[in-house]
């Protein structure tokens, strides 16, 4: 399943991380104050998450008075498409996260690529994912800029330039909740106009306005470094071609605070008139400092 270009991307990322961690380790307030696994993962749009859902967690191991930097790479390879996403994130004081991601969406049948850049900001409003009685709650915005808008235009997108998603996420780890195992859950509400996360533009003939969609994740930590779970992401359906909700089942390995790896099976439903798009999702996040 792992093709050579994927391996190459991963090697490049690892080399980048090793180099950067030398710089990082010389900074005094490097972010490593969180407990293992509580930085979560990085989702496809570059925000701290889940895999397809942004969570309330910030993608770094920083706590108060600390900063953290991370880099991620993700790939979803389904029947007719491949989505690669890579990017970096900075977080401060476990309070604010700034991230950048570049997505490359390959239409295998057309041998064409669509690129999208996403700059995102997230701020923690309330709570701590472990310690507070209620969930940790964060508010985020993802600004998306479509670099190749021709296909979006051809499919009838209202806007093929850029769009903004606004989301509110609540995430909680419940210690020992399931026969002694830790349970993690997340609910996200997102206001969006994006078609297929923006890769097919924003708005369309069916609907031009912002829509509220819900996304959720639930997982269990089988050990301090191994988690399994499911995710669901509701999608708008703005274009004349049907867009369906996304879902995945995942397994994540978090050996230490420097890196995590996720393997998932994703079902993206109908995408741009091609039905039942399913396949393997792989991602890794490396924590630089």
């Amino acid at each position, binding site marked *: 399943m792992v093709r050579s270009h994927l391996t190459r991307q991963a090697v490049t990322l690892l080399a980048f991380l090793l180099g950067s961690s030398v710089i990082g380790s010389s900074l005094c307030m490097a972010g*490593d*104050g*969180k*407990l*293992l696994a509580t930085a979560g993962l990085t989702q496809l749009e570059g925000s701290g998450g889940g895999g397809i859902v942004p969570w309330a967690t910030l993608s770094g191991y920083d*706590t*108060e*008075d*600390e900063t953290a930097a991370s880099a991620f790479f993700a790939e979803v390879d389904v029947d007719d498409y491949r989505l690669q996403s890579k990017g970096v994130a900075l977080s401060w004081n*476990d309070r604010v996260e700034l991230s950048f991601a570049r997505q490359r969406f390959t239409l295998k049948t057309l041998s064409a690529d669509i690129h999208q850049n996403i700059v995102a900001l997230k701020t923690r409003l309330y709570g*701590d994912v*472990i*310690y507070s*009685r209620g969930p940790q709650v964060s508010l985020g915005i993802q600004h998306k800029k479509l670099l190749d808008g021709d296909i979006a235009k051809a499919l009838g997108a209202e806007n093929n330039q850029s769009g903004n998603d606004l989301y509110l996420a609540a995430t909680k780890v*419940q*210690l*020992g*909740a*399931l*026969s*002694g*195992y*830790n*349970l993690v*859950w997340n*609910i996200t509400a997102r206001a969006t106009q994006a078609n297929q996360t923006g890769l097919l533009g924003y708005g369309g003939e069916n609907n031009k306005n912002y829509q509220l969609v*819900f*996304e*959720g994740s*639930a997982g269990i930590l089988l*050990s*301090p470094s191994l988690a399994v779970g*499911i995710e*669901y992401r*509701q999608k708008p359906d703005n274009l004349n071609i049907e867009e369906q*909700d996304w*879902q995945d089942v995942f397994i994540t390995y978090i050996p230490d605070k420097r890196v995590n790896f996720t393997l998932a099976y994703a079902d993206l439903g109908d995408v741009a008139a091609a039905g039942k798009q399913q396949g393997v999702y792989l991602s890794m996040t490396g924590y630089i400092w």
Partner: protein
Amino acid sequence: MVKVILILTIVASLCGCAHQAKNNSDLYQKFGGMEKIEQMTDFFIEEISFDNRIYPFFAETKIERFREKFIEQICAELGGPCQYSGDSMKDSHAGMDIRERDFNRLVELLIVAMERANISYPLQNQLLNKLAPMREQILP
């Protein structure tokens, strides 16, 4: 949307199971009783004494008294036959300016101590769940 509701229902029912957890003294027994608590506490004190970041917070602590009160507290939290007679968490940590990372470091040392005492992962989680609400009183 139906599926989202389904997921929410699953999550909610999982949380429901959590609240049906067995009564407290059962947890004390499963943990291994006083013998296990003492063993874990000794490992914990050892881990603290070798940790450069945490040890300074204990520099003026009378270790024998700390050991006694800590064992008592863990025993009580696990539903065992003890009553905690020490100072409140707020008083005993007053003026120490403990940062979030220091608190988490101490949790990590406690996890190491539990590992060394061969306490299973599910039991570790259940003890941490009992102790987690104390963070509010311990941080300034």
